């Protein structure tokens, strides 16, 4: 469980993160979304103590990361795949990290095999492709078998097999009751694996909750209905919590009733239906709407300030 409370970080007069509060719960995959420069990486850097918050705090299982006697068992972080000395082998890089915590050497081989780097374990990391470096970064994050796995843009450079492998790994991790916190620009990828979302822009919280909560907060789910008796069905659906829009002579857009309910109402009135389609905006569309007003470099007015 990760909890941020009024987290603020300023670099000189530039505010990277401002009064940010959110909770990442265990047992699910939480997506961390925000446009470039929104403060995602800064937040993650504060989580593991690389950056000191200007004010506020961010904790793991109720404690600051820097106060933990065994931080690698609590949090595994992939923040920068290329953070490896070019002249050091993958095995020795992981071994040096494992030794700080007295993690046995066998675990190093285990995670190298897990991420598929077993055959190149003793090659210099400087020769690794971006995808291999990414796998090495993920291996480093997994070393301490942490309760919380935090990955910043993990699918960068991974091939389709790697993406599928990572998706399974993360789902499996969350299913074991662990916390998975994942930042990514790839909305389609996130919508496949994330259960919860934390959306930030310009360092502030824009939205938080389950994926469907966040999406429906932007645009409520609606149902497209095509019927030859559109006015009659519209009249039958009238209720206080229902909005019916007549799109053309035969097409209705209904908000506040599920497709199942509409089907039953139509059936009871013996109104034929040609089409009954739930309509939901995609995560990407929802994200664009949420961040539209918060994109840092978007509007001239912002740039002039």
């Amino acid at each position, binding site marked *: 469980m990760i909890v941020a409370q009024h987290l603020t970080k300023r670099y000189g007069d530039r505010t990277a993160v401002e009064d940010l509060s959110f909770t990442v719960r265990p047992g699910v995959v939480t997506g961390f979304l925000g446009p470039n420069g929104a403060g995602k990486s800064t937040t993650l850097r504060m989580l593991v103590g690389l*950056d000191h918050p200007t004010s506020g705090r961010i904790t793991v299982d109720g404690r600051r990361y820097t106060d933990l*006697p*065994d931080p*690698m068992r609590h949090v595994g*972080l992939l923040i920068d795949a290329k953070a490896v000395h070019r002249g050091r082998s993958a095995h020795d890089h992981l*071994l040096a990290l494992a030794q700080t915590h*007295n993690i046995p050497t066998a675990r190093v081989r285990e995670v190298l095999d897990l991420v598929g780097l077993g055959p190149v374990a003793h090659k210099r990391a400087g020769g690794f492709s971006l995808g291999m470096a990414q796998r090495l970064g993920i291996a480093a994050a997994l070393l301490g*078998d942490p309760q919380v796995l935090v990955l910043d843009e993990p699918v960068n450079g991974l091939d389709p097999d790697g993406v599928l492998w990572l998706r399974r790994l993360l789902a499996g991790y969350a299913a074991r009751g662990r916390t998975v916190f994942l930042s990514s620009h790839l909305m389609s990828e996130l919508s496949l694996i994330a259960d919860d979302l934390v959306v930030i822009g310009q360092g502030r919280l824009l939205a938080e909750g389950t994926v469907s909560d966040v999406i429906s907060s932007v645009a409520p789910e609606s149902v497209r209905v095509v019927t030859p008796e559109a006015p009659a069905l519209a009249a039958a659906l009238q209720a206080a919590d229902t909005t019916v829009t007549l799109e053309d002579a035969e097409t209705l857009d209904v908000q506040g009733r599920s497709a199942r309910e509409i089907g039953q109402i139509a059936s009871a009135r013996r109104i034929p239906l040609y089409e009954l389609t739930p309509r939901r905006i995609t995560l990407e569309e929802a994200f664009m709407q949420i961040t539209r007003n918060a994109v840092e470099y978007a509007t001239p007015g912002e740039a002039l300030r």
Partner: protein
Amino acid sequence: MTTAVTPPATGPGHVRITAAGLLRSEWTKLRSVRSLRLTLALSFAAVAALSAYLLIDGETLGDGAAADVPFAFTAVYPLGVLALTVLGVLVVTGEYSSGTVRASMIAAPRRTGVLLAKAAVLAGVTTALGALLSVALYVLTRITGAVPAAAGMSLFDPAMSGGVVAATLLLPYGALFGIALGALVRNAAAAITLYFGVFQLGPQIFPVFLPDGLTGFTHWMPFAAMDVVRGAGLADGPYGVGTAVAVLLAWAAALGGVSWWLLKTRDI
């Protein structure tokens, strides 16, 4: 937390940060990069080769003032101090240039232990190699007889051991000095420039700019103090060996202290 949590596969409770763990980690980092191994080996090989040449050739050490100094076989050690200072710089700045420092500091987020372990490992390795070098050169001195003052003198004779120990310990001192400089500026080129510009050339350059009353300041810089320590009381100096050791320790403590404080407070 209400969710059931499986115990970590890495198991037992001894998985935590310890001083021994940090030391092992730093040893792994030092031995696993070829350029660091090479710099370390070449530093000692160069001193050994040059010293051996002087001892076998015999000309330089056998006459003049050096002939009266039993531990004259350590004359080339300042070269090693220089090379090991560069190694100390590289050991730290290599982490910054490669980004490994972020992985290191995420693994040990209190940071202090990483710096101390790094210093301890490099000091330990250079002290051990320095001791081997000194013993080997002493044996060679006795065999070739190149240093008349050393003839028949035990390595543990007070007239011999003081100078040998001083010269030998200056090797790890150089390495630690390099670590402090590297941690201070976090960039190899800047740290090495600082080292040569301020500490190596400074004593010649500063007097030009300083008012007459302050030129004596250069006596208190590390290289002047190192010369006093290496003389082990036989050479004339502005102050005694004890004071020189205190000056060197003060420089190390000041530079190391500032580096440590910056490491604790700066964002990585």
